[in-house]
């Protein structure tokens, strides 16, 4: 029976990982990039592999010199979706952003918050509001959780999604108050129905009018409320402060972050989370230090983490595209990802995507293989600006063994059986490394293996 996070030693799990060589191996760099981003070609992995885990992670945390220019370009791109008011087009825009971002960890964490504070374009049809929410996630993705929660409490897309556009003192709307406690900050069982009702009173007068947040002082309940044992004449921000200072908040958030960055496990021991939660609390609920601790930890590079996540459809597609330096029609891709269960801006419900094993069933497994083939055989696809055979030739990959080993390094978290990789290498040698169609078939086969579904 394979080891699980319950087997991890909480005292050592979050200690910094110190490889014997002092630097990461290519496979370790690939693991880091898969989790802290989506994927990267070997050249980028090799650059990271010149660094130790701490420096490599710090590099991923920093926005990089191209970030401002990239942000401007993405802002211009977003105008297209806004012009047509199409959340679907916006979904394609975000995939493009994920594929080309110079700050993959920021984007990956933005995707985490999108799943955490789920809001769907199925119901909120105003692309402008969805984009504004997405920018809110990005702005605070690695920053202050408190600022993020305060922002989301005023976010028009979220409040419309939760049918909380109006909240009057005579009939406090409990929807947002309930989700803030259950899904956003504390988790089930850490509050009472009375707490929800009282918190809802704090948010009375918080309204959305014409797509913008407004405080209606005439509809606010200025009376005293008791939330989680604290009694005062609180407004919404003060109510949120009570929730954020609960010990359960850092525990709840850190558990979700570990599940997102380390392993798809439902039962993560509280003792394992405790050191992270303490760090989160002492850092004033700043996200980056926790993420940095996770990504530089011994646990992160151990067999309890490597290959212990199932790629989400977005990770699968963007990872493949990024690793092979290719791209495609992102608007179409977003529709195909919908069939696989994960369309950006369209989470299934307020709980977000379940993730983990829920991504895989007989239908999606076949769909994933078909998606890989469609991405590879897209007529416009260029790999590093050229054909796949020329791309491999440029990387000086001459034999089937070279190519399969390279693909394993950049694409796979766990090695494929020797028999399978040998078979693929033989197929390449038989057809010749200049046969782009045959090479695509090999990549397709490799990316359809069960091993490729793991991250």
């Amino acid at each position, binding site marked *: 029976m394979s080891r699980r996070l319950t087997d991890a030693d909480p005292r050592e799990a979050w200690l910094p990982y110190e490889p014997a060589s002092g630097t990461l191996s290519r496979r370790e760099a690939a693991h880091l990039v898969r989790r802290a981003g989506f994927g990267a070609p070997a050249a980028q992995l090799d650059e990271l592999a010149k660094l130790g885990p701490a420096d490599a992670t710090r590099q991923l945390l920093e926005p990089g010199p191209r970030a401002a220019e990239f942000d401007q370009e993405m802002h211009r791109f977003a*105008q*297209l979706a806004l*012009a047509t008011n199409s959340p679907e087009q916006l979904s394609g825009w975000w995939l493009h952003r994920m594929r080309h971002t110079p700050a993959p960890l920021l984007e990956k964490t933005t995707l985490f918050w999108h799943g955490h504070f789920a809001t769907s374009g199925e119901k909120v049809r105003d692309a402008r509001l969805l984009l504004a929410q997405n920018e809110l996630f990005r702005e605070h993705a690695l920053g202050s959780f408190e600022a993020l929660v305060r922002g989301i409490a005023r976010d028009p897309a979220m409040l419309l999604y939760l049918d909380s556009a109006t909240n009057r003192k005579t009939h406090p709307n409990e929807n947002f108050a309930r989700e803030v406690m259950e899904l956003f900050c504390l988790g089930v069982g850490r509050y009472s129905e009375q707490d929800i009702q009282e918190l809802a009173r704090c948010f009375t007068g918080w309204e959305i009018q*014409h797509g913008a947040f407004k405080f209606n002082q005439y509809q606010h309940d200025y009376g005293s409320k008791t939330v989680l044992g604290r009694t005062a004449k609180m407004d919404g921000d003060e109510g949120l402060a009570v929730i954020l200072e609960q010990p359960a908040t850092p525990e709840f958030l850190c558990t979700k972050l570990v599940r997102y960055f380390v392993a798809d496990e439902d039962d993560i021991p509280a003792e394992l989370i405790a050191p992270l939660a303490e760090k989160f609390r002492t850092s004033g609920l700043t996200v980056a230090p926790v993420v940095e601790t996770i990504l530089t930890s011994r646990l992160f590079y151990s067999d309890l983490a490597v290959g212990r996540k199932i790629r989400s459809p977005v990770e699968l597609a963007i990872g493949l595209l990024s690793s092979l330096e290719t791209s495609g029609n992102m608007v179409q891709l977003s529709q195909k990802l919908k069939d696989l269960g994960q369309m950006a801006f369209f989470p299934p419900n307020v709980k977000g995507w379940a993730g983990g094993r829920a991504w895989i069933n007989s239908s999606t497994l076949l769909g994933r293989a078909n998606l890989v083939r469609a991405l590879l055989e897209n007529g416009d696809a260029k790999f590093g600006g050229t054909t796949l055979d020329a791309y491999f030739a440029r990387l000086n990959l001459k034999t089937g063994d070279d190519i399969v080993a390279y693909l394993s390094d950049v694409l796979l978290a766990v090695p494929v059986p020797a028999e399978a990789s040998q078979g693929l290498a033989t197929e390449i040698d038989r057809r010749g490394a200049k046969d782009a169609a045959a090479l695509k078939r090999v990549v397709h086969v490799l990316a359809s293996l069960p091993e490729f579904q793991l991250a």
Partner: protein
Amino acid sequence: MFCRSMCSWSLAAALLSSGPLLAAEKTAADLLPESVVAYLEVPQPAGALGLVLDHPLVEEIRSAPEIEKALASPQYAEYQEVLAHVEKQLGRPWREALKSLTHGGVHLGIDLPTRSGVALARGDDPEHVAKALATALDLVRAEAEKRGAGDPVKTTELRGVSIHQIDKVYLATIDHWLIAAGNPGLVGMVLELYQDGGQSLADDGQFQTARSASVVPQTAEAPPPAAWLYVDLRVLRLTGILKEALSKKSDNPPLELLAGGVIGGLPAAPYVTARLDLAASGAKLTASLPCDPAQIAAKREFYLGPAAGGQAPPLLTTEGTLLSLSTYRDFASLWRNAPDLFDEGTNAKFAEAEGGLTTLFAGRNFRDDILGNLEPGLQLVVARQQFPQEGITPAIKLPAGAIVVRMKNPTETARIFKVTFQSAIGFLNVVGAMNGAPPLDMNSREVDGALVVSGEYLPPGAGQSADEAPIQYNASPTIAIRGEQFILASSKPLAIAMLEAVKNAPAAAGGKNTQLVIDGASAQAALADNRDPLIAQNMLEKGHDREAAEREIGGLVHIVGRIQQSAAELTVGQDKLELSLELKLAERK
């Protein structure tokens, strides 16, 4: 597969070889049976092809990324290999061979009794013709051998001539002529007409009339067409094919508006012809339908006017005009005659629409009081917009559009239109408010003797950029009323510009039912206005990097700029309707 198609192409090229035509010799029409119902002749295929292939624009198109990609594909390389092989077999470059092989033109006919087609090509030398056919047959045999198939060519003899069958195509040569047909009987008829003579297409009086009217005489000013098409409608009508198609009532009002008059002419027209003229400066396609326009107008007065005397008003232009349309249409007459023109389902929709529109137009009967109060004729202008307007520039810049009509009873009708416009703006504001859109601020003022009523969006709110405003800021819906003129425009500046354009409009051109002009330079400028969004779209949807996207969009903008003007025109003559489509290319800069 591709190689096979290339072989077929080579075969076709071979089919097109011939030599100079002597006056005493038979023409293609002499060799085609009288039962041919459609005839296409291309007098100088090599010349026409050369004009296209050697045109500077084609050279520019070749440098487009998509075309470059196609030219670098293995399929194109395979095609080049086949072409080199053909050239080797023929002993000269393919362009030279084609010129020789099609010296006397290429002629195609569709024969109704055999339901088959026949192609005739006349070369400059019988030996070249025979060699071309032999080369084609060799290629087909070689391709079959490569696939491990047997000899695909079956050879028989008819009237002393060898007939080669490849699948469903029958090939033969006789002197300068090369014959290809889909039916052996049709080949036999051609051979019989060549050897023994007999009643041919050339003997048909109608064919002679049609051909002399549109192909001959040729002068330096009126050179022969690049291609000429003749379709005999008499037989098609007798067989019931045409009758069945035209006896049904329409279920498509837009098509009826666009082409109802032409469709109405088909049941009685004896034939239709079309000619294509090519020059370095552009191309023109002219189709002609002999008919009695007055008779068509009896049923479709809305389209042609009383006794077919309806004329399109003049084309209007203003700065940045991208498209200008002018047409004679009487919408009230169309609505009144709907039961005769359209099927039951469509008429039910007309009745339903009439109810709704009557409500919108303050209880006035839409057909009689609104449409009935408009003079026939409509002018439409689409023009590029200049930004910023009122300090606002939308992120995506759309052209503006305006419609100009004339009112029969301006005093009353103008008031109804104004009230309806105000109601529509109010309705838009209500719907917009529900969707979080900014409201339209309604204003009215007098401009150049006209009452101008406009709705303008309030400036973008806090947090929204006035330099990259949402798409609705392209619009400021406006009406302008001056005397009998009524203008409905999507933007206020265009409505005001149209007041000037109407005042300065030239006199209407006689005999024109519909005119359309598209200006290439303005279309190019409108595309260039949106260069960044187009590049973004290209990157998102094609996965191109910025450099490739810029190259592709830059190429598109450039190619559009090489079109000086596109035009379409429907002319009503005494005894015919004539439709022309013209493309004029700009001088290379």
